[in-house]
């Protein structure tokens, strides 16, 4: 393989990594939004329409919340490693190099995952504190 061919292959790999990073940035907020809609929709179906038993619905949603939070912890840990804060703050590395972009995406993903986690906990609190439809 020529040097040029090697270079192109490496570029392709980097590009596909960064494309994956872009998807991962959107993962946490999307999961939070899905969780939010799921909670409101199922509690409405249980309490307004009476289509689901409220206690089972409540416990299932709490279980879903736990799974979502586990996914966020995993995702946050990956993003933290991508960000690698021990190698300096990203703002100090704003020369537009591929390395900076890579770490910036990790930084953004980490913060979005953190805020999505907090929002998911807030959405879950009513499920823990309010037991029925009253």
């Amino acid at each position, binding site marked *: 393989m020529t040097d040029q061919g090697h270079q192109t292959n490496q570029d392709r790999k980097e590009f596909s990594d960064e494309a994956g990073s872009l998807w991962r940035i959107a993962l946490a907020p999307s999961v939070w939004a899905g969780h939010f809609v799921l909670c409101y929709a199922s509690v409405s179906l249980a309490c307004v329409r009476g289509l689901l038993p409220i206690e089972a619905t409540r416990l299932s949603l709490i279980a879903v919340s736990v799974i979502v939070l586990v996914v966020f912890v995993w995702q946050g840990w990956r993003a933290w490693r991508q960000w690698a804060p021990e190698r300096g703050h990203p703002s100090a590395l704003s020369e537009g190099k591929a390395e900076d972009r890579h770490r910036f995406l990790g930084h953004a993903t980490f913060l979005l995952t953190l805020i999505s986690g907090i929002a998911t906990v807030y959405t879950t*609190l*009513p499920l823990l504190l*309010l037991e029925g439809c009253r």
Partner: protein
Amino acid sequence: MPFRALISPPLAGLAAAQRLSFQRIRGRGLRTTAAALVLSGCSGRQSVLDPAGSDAQALFTLFVSLLVGAAILWVAMNGLFYWFTRRSTGTLPERSGRMLILFGGVIAPTVVIGAVLLWGLSLLPDQRAPGDGLTVSVLGEQWWWRVEYTMEGVEGSVVSANEIRLPTGQRTDLRLTSDGVIHSLWVPALGGKMDMFPGRETRMSLEPVEPGIYRGQCAEFCGASHAWMAFMAVAMMPEDFATWLEAEAQDAAEPQSDAARRGLAVFQAAGCGACHTVRGTPAVGKVGPDLTHVGSRLTIGAGRLGATLDNIER
């Protein structure tokens, strides 16, 4: 006085409610006078700042805590702003700056909002806790309130309108619904508000602590007369309430005087019974408020006017 026939002899309830009201004013005199000097206008029969029920007290404590917390935050934020723009204008070490943002921008708001959310949510179950046996069903009309009392283990119900009486020291269930448009029932001195939807039943419960007369108000815009859609909520000692409910369950009293008999005749001749019910008379209309014992109510016209003969005559 054409409508005197409708006015039953003053029932125990009215006298008791007025007596209690005076006692309440006397008993709370010192406290309210002191508060009135500082916060005139915060007390009164329709004020969340003058709670007389356990739910209103819980909300009041939450409100005061939020207010004090907000004031402290406001002073602290402005203090920091002043400090960093006027007093200590040099640059912060990057580490300190980052810690300030992490603590002030992420950790502190998350913890404070989380704590307030936890507190607020923990209050909600109490505001809807099951009652101790008495249920008051309220149906919102444009622009008045149908009221019906049922007691656990007792057959039948007592129908009334535009006034809600509750025993103190116990929790009463309120089952709410509406006809036509959305209303909301709110007695600020006793507890939170709850919307009333056509075709749905919502529930809340109230536990008055101090006997007295409080004012309730429709809290959801429901049309032209929304602002006038009110009622009196009378909190009575349980024994007074039992006496009142027993009297309220009776048919209207027979007219005793000539004027009262003439009033009944006019009421019947004018066709008032097509819309109004007066139990014990041929008037069985369901369109308007039930007028049985209307004379013992504290107001007429859904809280609009005092229940005086002059107002009834209008």
